[in-house]
Each structure stands twice: as C-alpha cells, then as structure tokens.
C-alpha cells in the first residue's frame, strides 16, 4: 500500500508543482480558471489516450517511441514557457498597472495564458499516463493486495495534491509585485529543467550524443528520486547524474530565455 502511495504521489507532485506555478503566474488574467481547467481536462484525456496506446507508442520509432514522444512534448512545453516569459516581460508592467481595469493589455494577456494551459495539459498528460497504467494494472487484478494498493494510490493522489496546493498558496502570500518576479524566475527554471529532461530522452533514444555520460554524481547526497529531489528536479531541473548534453540544454535554455526577456525589457515600454 505504501509502495503504491509513493509511486502515485511522485507523479501527482510533479504535475501538481507545474500546475501551481502556472496558476500563480497567471493570477489576474481574465478567464484564468477556464484556461487552466481546459489544460487539466485536456491533460487527463491525453493521459488516458497515452495509457491506451502505450503499446503502440512503445513500438514506434524502432522501439524508442516513448523517449521521442516524451522529448517532443517536453520541448513543446519549453517553447510555451519561454514564450510566456518573453510576452509577460513585455506587457507585464502595463498589466500590473492596469490591474482591476479591463485594459487592452489584460485582454491580450490571454495569449500567454493559453500557452500555459498547454504546459499544464502536457504535465498532466505525462505524469497522468503513468498513474493510469499503474492503477489499471492493480485494478485488472492479479495483485494479492489489490484493494490496499488502490487505497494507497488514491492516498498518493491526495497527498501530492495537498503538497502542490500548499506550494501554490505559499506563492500567493507573496505581494503581487514580488510574485511576478518569482513566477518569472520559476518558469524560466522550469523550462530549463524540462529541456534537460528532453535531452535525457534524446540520449536514451540514441538520437543525440550524451557529451559525457555522467558529468557528476550527487545521488548519494540527494537522489533525484527522493521527495526533496523530485521537488528540486521539477522546480529547477536538478538531476543527480546529469549527462553533458543535459547540462548544456539547461544552460542554453535558461540563457536564451534570460537574453530574450532582457532584450525586451531594455526597450522603451511603448506598444
């Protein structure tokens, strides 16, 4: 039962942290709840589809379909996150100034919010598919303690949800001005971490060089499968045994986002 709880908890926490950051980042944007809800529903539907077609995905691309699928959806999320940050940096100030009034900038604010609902859908789809496959295996029978494991799995969903909600509520306690800076930084790091994960999948599929299998090994200090490790892996992209390409992807993604947002904010704020 505990094993089931831990497995489901991990997946829900990973998706939940992403949802929490996106919720905080889109605070004050009109129709935020609708966009987030749409992302969640699309993600859950996608998770069920991925679970149903798990066999076909595994067989695709000469046996490396799972890796390529994961890399592709992660890279889409990276682009969406980067777009959001660049856009918000350009319009964020008008948005903050006009808050409460239905200014045109706020209405236009739906654009990056849409990008972020794609990010939510992708996060829920990836982690959700694993939960569905795992729980289906239990429900399909053959487990001696099936009922107990299902209970554990459901407890894992609740525990992961509660912890994610706690992080979101913690973010909300920040003053609006600070919240904007914090979510911008969190989203840039989230994107860099996803790029590093995508690089890992491309290496696993043997379509990209590893540039050094293991640059360092800090798994004995902090395993990226421990609870703290999972939180750090999701939030900042911590990997305990990173390949060279993963480090390169992390640095490049963060560098590109920082440069793009910096380039925009240095321009005079007209538009």
């Amino acid at each position, binding site marked *: 039962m505990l*094993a089931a709880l831990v*497995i489901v908890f991990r997946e829900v926490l990973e998706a939940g942290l992403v949802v929490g950051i996106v919720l905080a980042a889109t605070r004050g944007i009109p129709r935020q709840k609708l966009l987030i809800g749409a992302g969640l529903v699309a993600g859950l539907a996608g998770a069920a589809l991925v679970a149903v077609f*798990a*066999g076909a995905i*595994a*067989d695709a691309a*000469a*046996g*490396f379909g*799972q*890796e390529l699928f994961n890399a592709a959806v992660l890279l889409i999320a990276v682009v969406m996150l980067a777009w959001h940050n660049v856009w918000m940096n350009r319009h964020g100030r008008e948005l903050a100034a006009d808050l409460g009034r239905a200014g045109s900038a706020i209405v236009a604010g739906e654009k990056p919010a849409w990008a972020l609902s794609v990010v939510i859908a992708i996060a829920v789809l990836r982690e959700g598919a*694993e939960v569905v*496959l*795992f729980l*289906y*295996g*239990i429900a*399909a029978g*053959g487990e001696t303690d099936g009922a107990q494991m299902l209970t554990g799995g459901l407890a894992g969903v609740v525990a992961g949800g509660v912890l994610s909600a706690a992080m979101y509520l913690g973010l909300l306690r920040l003053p609006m001005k600070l919240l904007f800076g914090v979510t911008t930084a969190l989203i840039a790091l989230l994107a860099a971490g996803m790029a590093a994960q995508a690089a*890992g999948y*491309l290496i*696993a*599929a*043997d*379509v*990209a*060089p590893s*540039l050094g*299998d*293991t640059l360092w090994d800090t*798994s004995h200090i902090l*395993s990226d*499968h421990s609870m703290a490790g999972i939180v750090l892996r999701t939030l900042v992209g911590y990997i305990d*045994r990173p*390949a060279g*390409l993963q480090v*390169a*992807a992390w640095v*490049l*993604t963060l*560098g*590109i986002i920082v*440069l*793009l947002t*910096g*380039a925009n904010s*240095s321009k005079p704020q007209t538009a």
Partner: protein
Amino acid sequence: MRRILLAALLAVSAAVFLIPAAQADEPLIITLSIKDNRFDQPRLEVPAGKKFVLLVRNLDGKAEEFESRSLKLEKIVPAGKEVKFNVGPLKAGEYSFFGEYHEKTAQGVMVAK
C-alpha cells in the same frame, strides 16, 4: 551585443541537438523477461566495455516500469510488450535494476564482465 550572444547560443543549441549520434550496426541484443512480477534472470550477465541493447519483455498482463538508477534507465513496458534500452559501454561491475510497479519482487542485478 545581446543579439550576437543570443544568436551564438541558438547556433550552439542547434549544433548540439543536430549532431547525429554514431550509429553502431548490428548491436548485441540481450533479453530479459518479466513474469509474475519477477525477472527471469535476477543476475543478468552482460559484456563490459561494449554497447548493447537490452530487450525487456513483459509477459504479464499489466504494465511495468523498468528502472535502473545507476544505468539511468526508466521506461514503461506495456502489458505483453517488449521495449528496448540502449546500454553501455559499461565499466565492469554490478548495476541493480527493478520494476517500479512491483518493487518488492521485481529486483535484479546486471553484472558487467
């Protein structure tokens, strides 16, 4: 200055991702099966210093996640399917692996010689 730096970063990322990995022909395939939530070879001997493909077959009627922390492998093996992993070249030694969905019983060690 910023633009030049940005262009350079983009160029490097493109290069890094587009360099095709060296493809070895006819890789060695080593097969491992999962049945009743256990591995058929709890001690799997593999060659050291050589790339190979690990083929994991799931003979059970439900999905399993094959995982090895030290080998950095982690992939779902759908019910009744087989999945491939690129492994190595490994240094001689022992590398543990397990099935995450049935961690109590699905345990094994890869021995590279």
